[in-house]
């Protein structure tokens, strides 16, 4: 009986439908006939993660929008497809002033560099803290120095990339099961081995949580500072996730692998692509939800990790709008 993060996960094919102003899920069997119906209490849900083939119509979507429920769609292999964000007064309470200030901060190379550097520094410090907690020595001073000396975003990215490469090499000292989870090189789209596919899945989840929290503030997720807002639609959540990936994601990967809660058996390989089995997804999600609803004391306040992420976004907003000094969140 864990505390609920007000999220629901759909792992089997079926149909989401609206009835009696409530949400019903019809589960399908192999030949697409309904085999079970479940009621999802609409007022107890904030987000629905859809990891299977689900039928949904515009009538249901309109109802979900009225109730401010977010949908996140994934492909059967766990790669991210997109979100459904309701366009209601609650989700677009964006002020023009904040948007203008965000654009100005982005165009102002000094300020953009300052924010990007702070985010990267927090990322590096959090990574180093992970290594320290697992008794692995890691000298970060050359990387911090490279970061301080960086004068362009590209140089910050280069410093971060060089650091990240070394950090991932340290994973081989932290993770005990070297036979199936040896880290060689980070690969994406698609992840080539089991450890990469695990990292990708956890990171995607953290990106989505950050994105949902950004939507609750006045910031615009389309304009990121460290990540270039190129043709991909959104980038600010990637920046904020940089800070929280080591704290939430990496520690979770280490504990789950070292306690053998996830083993090589939890992965299914199909035509060269690797995915989790549904039982593994459930195990991981229960861990993630446990982590997100865990309360930590920060500046005299008891906050859940979700609220910490929102606080970070609001601090960023304060830096953008009121020129307050910004310092990335470092977890000790």
């Amino acid at each position, binding site marked *: 009986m864990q505390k609920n993060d007000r999220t629901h996960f*759909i792992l089997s094919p079926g149909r989401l439908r609206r009835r009696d*102003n409530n949400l019903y899920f019809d589960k399908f069997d192999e030949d697409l006939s309904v085999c079970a119906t*479940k009621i999802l209490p609409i007022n107890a849900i904030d987000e629905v993660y859809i990891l299977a083939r689900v039928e949904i119509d515009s009538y249901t979507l309109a109802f979900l929008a009225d109730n401010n429920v977010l949908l996140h769609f994934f492909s059967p292999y766990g790669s991210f497809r997109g979100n459904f964000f309701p366009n209601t007064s609650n989700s677009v309470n964006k002020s023009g002033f904040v948007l203008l200030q965000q654009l100005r901060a982005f165009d102002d190379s000094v300020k953009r560099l300052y924010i990007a550097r702070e985010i990267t520094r927090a990322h590096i410090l959090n990574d180093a803290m992970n290594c320290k907690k697992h008794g692995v020595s890691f000298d970060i001073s050359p990387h911090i120095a490279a970061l301080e000396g960086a004068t362009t975003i590209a140089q910050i990215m280069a410093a971060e990339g060089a650091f990240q490469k070394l950090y991932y090499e340290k994973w081989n000292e932290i993770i005990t099961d070297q036979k199936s989870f040896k880290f060689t090189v980070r690969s994406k789209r698609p992840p080539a081995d089991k450890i990469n596919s695990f990292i990708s899945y956890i990171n995607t989840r953290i990106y989505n949580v950050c994105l949902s929290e950004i939507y609750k503030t006045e910031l615009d997720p389309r304009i990121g500072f460290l990540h270039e807002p190129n043709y991909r639609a959104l980038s600010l959540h990637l920046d904020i996730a940089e800070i929280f990936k080591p704290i939430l994601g990496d520690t979770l990967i280490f504990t789950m692998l070292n306690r053998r809660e996830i083993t090589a058996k939890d992965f299914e390989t199909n035509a060269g692509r690797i995915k989790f089995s549904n039982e593994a997804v459930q195990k991981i999600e229960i861990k993630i939800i446990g982590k997100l609803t865990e309360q930590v004391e920060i500046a005299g306040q008891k906050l859940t990790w979700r609220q910490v992420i929102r606080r970070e976004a609001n601090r960023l907003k304060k830096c953008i709008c009121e020129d307050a000094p910004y310092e990335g969140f470092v977890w000790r």
Partner: protein
Amino acid sequence: MYVILFYDIAGSEQKEKNNANRIRKAVEKYLPRVQFSVFEGEIRQSDFKRLTATLQKECDKELDSIVIYTFNSLKYSERLVIGQDKNGSLFS
């Protein structure tokens, strides 16, 4: 907070209005069903107020009975299920 709710609604032949459906729909919007007339789950304080207000309005004070247990912490409790756990988890 965590809530366990169960009810017994008298049949429609005993009273003028049939309120069983209205009560069922009201509860289903807030809590997952675990058995035919038993619901349990995490609920917000504000949602709980709204739910109890609707139930107060819909309930027939003479014939119906609704019992609600609330918990602020589940530290001293243990949940044992024998057989099928219906609608218990976050996954479907």
